[in-house]
């Protein structure tokens, strides 16, 4: 118990309580101080713990108290630290800290300042609980908590109708995913009578590898459903682009670096189970691949800078799932780490651009910011280079690990992946060139962001470039086995060439010959319009699911059953009662002789009844 793991999540919780309860009364500086120090202290405590547990070959578990003890089932409030958790916790607290600092500048003149930081701290608390949890139920608590915080933060500017709608959409879609997750938890309880990771995986050894759809595969698929909801994969990704309604630091922290990666972490954590259910694992890879390719195509034509990066996140998450799905868990996690760096940087850069243009997000109105916001320009350049997979950048190392693993798993996956990588490079640089090259097309007078914003950008830029050299796969070896040794240079060369081709095309389209994209768009107007409208997925969902459910409940449940059946019967009884009442009331005709008749009638009846019986 000496490492006191509980302090890591407790600190952000304390920050939340202070800001949440006293926030309005504290000056802005105090609020910022409380928020940032709580995350910083948490980060330091993580460092102390990780260094303290250094060899960390086995999972280090701390049990605090029995949360649920029913019959033989014991679910404790226990936290756990092993190598995977260490990586996740470092990323969450590290990137989180940088984003907190950035947010201090970005949200400086926003009225809900204290409320914003309170929510951010609460989010950190839930994310850390999710990552540190030693059993599925506590992880589920974190899972729900982050969902709640994402709802709160997306709809932070609740006066805007679109923000609240986006918040609702995110929350509901997440709930659909969580539905799958909870079913999986129930199955685990039924089959293993415990939810503790260690015990579950220990009992797994007795189970055979399932080639048909057995319980393990079912659990795997349900967990995958939960993961797609949280990490915005193909069926349930629709909420992430709309989540851009929230402030940019939120998008950076939650919808890029930490929350969306929870799904990947969960799949990685249940690796032993997935290894026993190859079909489920295959499904993970498929989902990942489809999402990566599909989201990349949509990203090509988006005009809102944040929407472009949103689809890029969906696509990169697809890569992570692809990595994990093809058995290369270490590669998946490695990409998760590097992605956290450059995607956070991309979003924060975009935030800085928006800040500079005082709220303008449309790429077509930007341009020529190279001279006006040099810091942002250079840091964003590093991020773009890294995500495009230019050799020796962080993105290059992690993405190629995944693509190589995909090739060994199934060659066609490699080619689709590489094509998607090319598209990624294209749309990132399209946004980059549109924003920073050519003349400034807007009316405002852009200005560079203050130091408090550009410093985190610089730090992240450094990490995006040098991130590749952090030995994440090596570090995760005891958990997931050795990374695939065969580094086939040919595959690497092919994927790099695709990346560079993407960059060149982007340069050609948007710097050299700006009229080209317009001409191309008119020629293939049909395809262009469908892709621009996100393949009308939202509209399809609306028509297929939302409308029937809402209409059904209104006409059938509410009008049909509730009104006709229940109300009618209740009112009916009341009306009958009044009817009887009225009839009885009429009994009092007011005539004495009627009354006498009643008395006599009563007497006769009584006499017959009592007298008559022998």
């Amino acid at each position: 118990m000496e490492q006191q793991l509980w302090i890591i999540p407790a600190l952000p919780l304390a920050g939340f309580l202070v800001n949440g309860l006293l926030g309005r009364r504290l000056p802005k500086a105090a609020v910022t101080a409380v928020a940032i120090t709580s995350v910083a202290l948490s980060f330091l405590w993580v460092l102390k713990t990780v260094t303290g547990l250094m060899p960390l070959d086995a999972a280090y578990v701390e049990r605090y108290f029995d949360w649920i003890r029913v019959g033989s089932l014991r679910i404790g409030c226990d936290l756990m630290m092993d190598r995977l958790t260490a990586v996740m916790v470092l990323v969450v607290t590290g990137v989180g800290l940088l984003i907190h600092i950035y947010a201090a500048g970005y949200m400086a003149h926003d009225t809900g300042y204290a409320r914003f930081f309170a929510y951010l701290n609460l989010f950190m608390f839930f994310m850390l609980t999710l990552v540190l949890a030693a059993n599925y139920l506590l992880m589920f608590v974190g899972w729900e908590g982050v969902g709640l915080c994402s709802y709160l933060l997306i709809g932070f500017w609740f006066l805007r109708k679109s923000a609240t709608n986006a918040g609702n959409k995110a929350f509901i879609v997440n709930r659909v995913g969580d539905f799958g997750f909870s079913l999986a938890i129930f199955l685990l309880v039924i089959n293993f009578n415990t939810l503790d990771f260690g015990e579950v995986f220990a009992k797994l050894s007795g189970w055979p590898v399932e080639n048909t759809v057995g319980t393990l595969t079912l659990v795997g698929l349900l967990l995958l459903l939960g993961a797609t909801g949280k990490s915005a994969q193909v069926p349930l990704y629709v909420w992430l682009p709309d989540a851009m309604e929230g402030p940019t630091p939120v998008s950076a922290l939650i919808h890029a670096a930490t929350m969306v990666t929870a799904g990947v972490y969960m799949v990685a954590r249940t690796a032993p189970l997935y290894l026993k259910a190859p079909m489920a694992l295959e499904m993970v890879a498929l989902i990942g691949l489809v999402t990566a390719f599909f989201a990349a195509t949509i990203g090509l034509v988006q005009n809102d800078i944040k929407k472009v990066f949103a689809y890029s996140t969906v696509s990169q998450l697809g890569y992570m799932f692809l990595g994990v799905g093809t058995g290369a868990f270490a590669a998946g996690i490695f990409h998760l780490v590097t992605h956290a760096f450059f995607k956070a940087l991309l979003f924060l850069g975009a935030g800085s651009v928006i800040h500079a243009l005082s709220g303008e997000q449309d790429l077509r109105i930007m341009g020529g910011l190279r001279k006006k916001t040099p810091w942002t320009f250079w840091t964003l350049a590093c991020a773009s280079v890294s995500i495009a997979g230019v050799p020796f950048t962080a993105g290059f190392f992690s993405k190629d690990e995944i693509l190589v693993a995909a090739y060994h798993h199934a060659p066609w996956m490699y080619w689709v992946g590489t094509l998607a990588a090319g598209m990624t490079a294209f749309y990132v640089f399209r946004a980059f060139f549109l924003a920073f090259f050519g003349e400034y097309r807007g009316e405002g007078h852009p200005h560079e962001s203050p130091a408090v914003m550009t410093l985190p950008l610089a730090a992240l830029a450094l990490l995006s470039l040098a991130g590749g050299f952090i030995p994440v796969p090596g570090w995760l070896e005891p958990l997931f086995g050795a990374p695939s040794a065969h580094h086939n240079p040919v595959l690497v060369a092919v994927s790099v060439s695709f990346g560079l081709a993407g960059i060149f095309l982007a340069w050609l389209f948007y710097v050299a010959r700006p009229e080209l994209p317009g001409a191309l768009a008119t020629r293939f107007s049909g395809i262009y319009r469908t892709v621009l409208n996100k393949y009308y997925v939202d509209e399809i969902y609306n028509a297929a699911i939302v409308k029937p459910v809402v209409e059904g409940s209104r006409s059938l449940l509410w009008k049909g059953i509730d009104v006709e059946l229940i109300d009618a019967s209740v009112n009916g009884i009341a009306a009958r009662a009044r009817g009887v009442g009225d009839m009885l009331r009429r009994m009092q005709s007011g005539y004495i002789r009627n009354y006498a008749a009643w008395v006599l009638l009563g007497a006769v009846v009584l006499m017959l009844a009592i007298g008559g019986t022998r």
Partner: protein
Amino acid sequence: MHPITTTHYLILSAALLAIGAVGVLIRRNIIIMLMSIELILNAVNINLIAFSRHYQDVIGQVFAIFVITVAVAEAAVGLGILIALFRNKATVQADEVEILKW
């Protein structure tokens, strides 16, 4: 000739009871209704005396005297109320007395 037994008296009193009860129902005038009630009370008296003779003890007769006294008291009060009613509504017809209803 068979002697007159208690049952004869019972039958007589039952008849009187019936007449009295029907009288209350049929007759319109309240005074007549009052009279028919007195009739029933007298039927009761007949019964009491018959049973008293049957059991050869005095309880029945004592009871009869009390019944008579009570009947008088009732009649006095009843007529009093009737006069008050008559003063107000100038009618003794039972059917016109029907403001209070439902």
